[in-house]
């Protein structure tokens, strides 16, 4: 069905809100261990595209496959219920722009919830795993805190640990630094870079172009619900071909006098 190198296949994804199309024939593949960044102006459909992968925003039509397995639709084509989707979503880690930590649970319990309640680990094993992952995102000392006591950057790192606790095949990042104060962006990007260096498969929606260049193997530029241009990160950023991409990149360029 699919070669062993390909992890994720997105095939002719379309989505409309009523009469308004937001995704138009979006297709791409992600290799195992590969990292793709989705960039583009706001409203270009990049977040919708990302959220279609785990069916938080189900596409109107088109196929998503992970390791050849069709996501969100049963063999007979009927859409899956949320209960049927749950085992598929369990294999896809997601990091949200606004973290969405569960405020009534401790930091450790936030990370341990998936291993305990979805994968059935014993409470002490799940807690141990949570503490290991919190140490990995440099928050081992915050295990017992409540999320509200943490800064935005720390909360987002907990959210990353929570996604890692799923032992996911694929990590999705939906503008993971857009809601952060500028001085907190670096610590989150550092953690994501560390994960990238481990060879994890990722799709990132980001506004941080320098970060996309550094972390992503390939960049997809979206505009108006379509992939307008795609290619290796450096080529896309240094030698854009499409006028719209050039325009987008120049709109982001820093003011004169800054590095």
């Amino acid at each position, binding site marked *: 069905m699919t070669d062993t190198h390909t992890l994720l296949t997105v095939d002719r994804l379309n989505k409309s809100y009523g009469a308004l199309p937001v995704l138009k024939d979006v297709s791409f593949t992600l290799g195992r261990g590969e990292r793709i960044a989705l960039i583009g102006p706001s409203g270009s459909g990049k977040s919708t595209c990302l959220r279609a992968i*785990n069916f*938080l925003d189900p596409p109107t039509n088109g196929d998503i496959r992970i390791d050849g397995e069709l996501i969100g639709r049963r063999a007979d084509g009927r859409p899956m219920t*949320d*209960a049927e*989707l*749950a*085992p*598929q*979503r*369990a*294999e*896809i*880690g*997601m990091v*949200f722009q*606004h973290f*969405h*930590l*569960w*405020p*009534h649970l401790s930091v450790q319990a936030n990370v341990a*919830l*998936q291993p305990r*309640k*979805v994968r059935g680990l014993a409470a002490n094993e799940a807690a141990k795993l949570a503490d290991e992952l919190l140490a990995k995102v440099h928050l081992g000392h915050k295990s017992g805190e*409540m999320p*509200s006591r943490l800064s935005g950057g720390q909360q987002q790192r907990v*959210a990353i640990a*929570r*996604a890692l606790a*799923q032992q996911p095949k694929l990590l999705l990042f939906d503008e993971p630094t857009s809601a952060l104060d500028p001085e907190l962006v670096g610590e989150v990007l550092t953690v994501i870079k560390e994960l990238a260096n481990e060879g994890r498969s990722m799709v990132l929606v980001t506004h941080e172009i320098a970060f996309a260049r550094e972390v992503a193997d390939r960049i997809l530029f979206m505009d108006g619900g379509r992939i307008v241009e795609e290619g290796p990160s450096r080529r896309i950023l240094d030698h854009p071909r499409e006028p719209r991409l050039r325009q987008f990149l120049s709109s982001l360029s820093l003011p004169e006098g800054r590095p």
Partner: protein
Amino acid sequence: MNNAMMNRIVDALLSGAIVTIEVSLGALALAMAIGLTLATIDNLARARATAFVIRVYVEALRNVPSLTFLFLLYFGLAALGLRLSSLTAAIAGLGMIGGAVVFDIFRAGFQSVPKGQSEAAAAIGLKPLAAFRLVILPQGLRLALPPLGNYAVGLVKDTSLVAAIAAPEVMFNARQIVNETFATAWVYGAAALLYLALTFIVGQAFVLFERRLEY
């Protein structure tokens, strides 16, 4: 006023207070059970028919006066051959009416939990029921506590209605003892203070509970 009369008034009001507390606790428990069950079903069920049936129950019980509903349960059912004790009818009546009120409180509480919370729960692979139990319910309960406290205080006051179906609670006993002693101002004044004490305790209990659930 002599001591014997004083003792009779105190006895009557205290035995009434016990019934008031019984009716309040019984009706509160029933209302919470009905309200929480319906709000949970409403949150999880996707069929429109389910939402419709719940809506019918809620609208019917919210829009019939409590006294009418109590008479219906106590006298109406008795006329059809089902004789409830006045205490049972009181608890069932106020509890069923309260179920409609508490349903709306819980529904609003669950709906106030930000959407991202359930999205994050779905994203890690929790099924809807587990996501509800682990993520929505604990947060929704906390959001529902202040209005639940208001409802519980209102319920204690509404138990005075069940005097009309001869449940021997504070107001029922107060009226009887007034008929015997004619100490109208004293008796109703004492009854008012008693309600004030009960509602204060209920209000404080909810405040304490809220603090315990803070995060």
